[in-house]
């Protein structure tokens, strides 16, 4: 019998932090992101326990996490949860004041816009890769980013 714990641990060590950051940016809520990642790994454990486990890549896991996040978002609409901070500084040029502004600006975006910004800026994906990940056309991915960037510029310029 396949013990799911071992491959789960290895996969979490390899991809867990990246998946969590993706979930946090999608959900704009750290606690909900933890739940989403855990649920994704529970689904993965079930898949590994089947007779023909799938090839597990980051892309495969990201799709599961994404599905969990959008399910959580649908549930959250009924509960009205309060989101916590979703970004942290990685540059010495960042300041706490700026972090708060960036954090708020990202949260003000729609989930779809925030996802595209995250995938392009933080993950470094191309619009084609974003389109593949999100199941949308490349034009939709590009236009979502354009609208998101415009909204961020407005917010961040107004705060500066």
């Amino acid at each position, binding site marked *: 019998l396949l013990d*799911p*714990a071992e491959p*789960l*641990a290895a996969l*979490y*060590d390899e991809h*867990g*932090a990246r998946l*969590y*950051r*993706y979930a*946090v*940016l999608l959900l704009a809520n*750290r606690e909900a*992101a*933890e739940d989403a*990642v*855990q*649920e994704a*790994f*529970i689904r993965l*454990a*079930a898949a590994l*326990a*089947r007779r023909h486990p799938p090839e597990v890549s980051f892309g495969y896991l990201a799709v599961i996490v994404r599905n969990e996040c959008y399910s959580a978002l649908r549930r959250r609409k009924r509960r009205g949860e309060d989101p916590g*901070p*979703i*970004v*942290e*500084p*990685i*540059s010495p*040029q*960042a300041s706490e004041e*700026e*972090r708060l502004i*960036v954090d708020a600006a990202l949260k003000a975006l729609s989930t779809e816009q925030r996802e595209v*910004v*995250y995938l392009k*800026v*933080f993950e470094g994906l191309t619009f084609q890769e974003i389109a593949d990940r999100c199941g949308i056309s490349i034009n939709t991915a590009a236009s979502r980013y354009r609208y998101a*960037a415009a909204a*961020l*510029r407005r917010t*961040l*310029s107004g705060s*500066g």
Partner: protein
Amino acid sequence: MNDDELEVMLRRYTGVDPPSSLRARVVTARGPLRVPLTRLDWVLVAAALLLTAGAALTDPDLSDAAVNDVQAAWEMSVEELAATMGGGDEARAYAQMVVPRPELTPQAEEE
């Protein structure tokens, strides 16, 4: 602020890191794992249930109490099978179709 300046500003940040406790949650939590049964599994389950119900039906010493027991056993088999399939009304309805229903009352009256 143009697009380049915006990206420069955003790249000073990243998504927050997971808490260390998440690894333990992920690795240890199995959740309600249900490995799907194959067609052969279902055939074996149905055969076992048929044998159980058949043995109960052909018992010559079947009393009213035993009839109730068989009925209760049938209901329990239905519930167990429904739970195996994940529970719920749909699973229960399917289990009621799969598990042979004992027709005990007429047989008991004939005796």
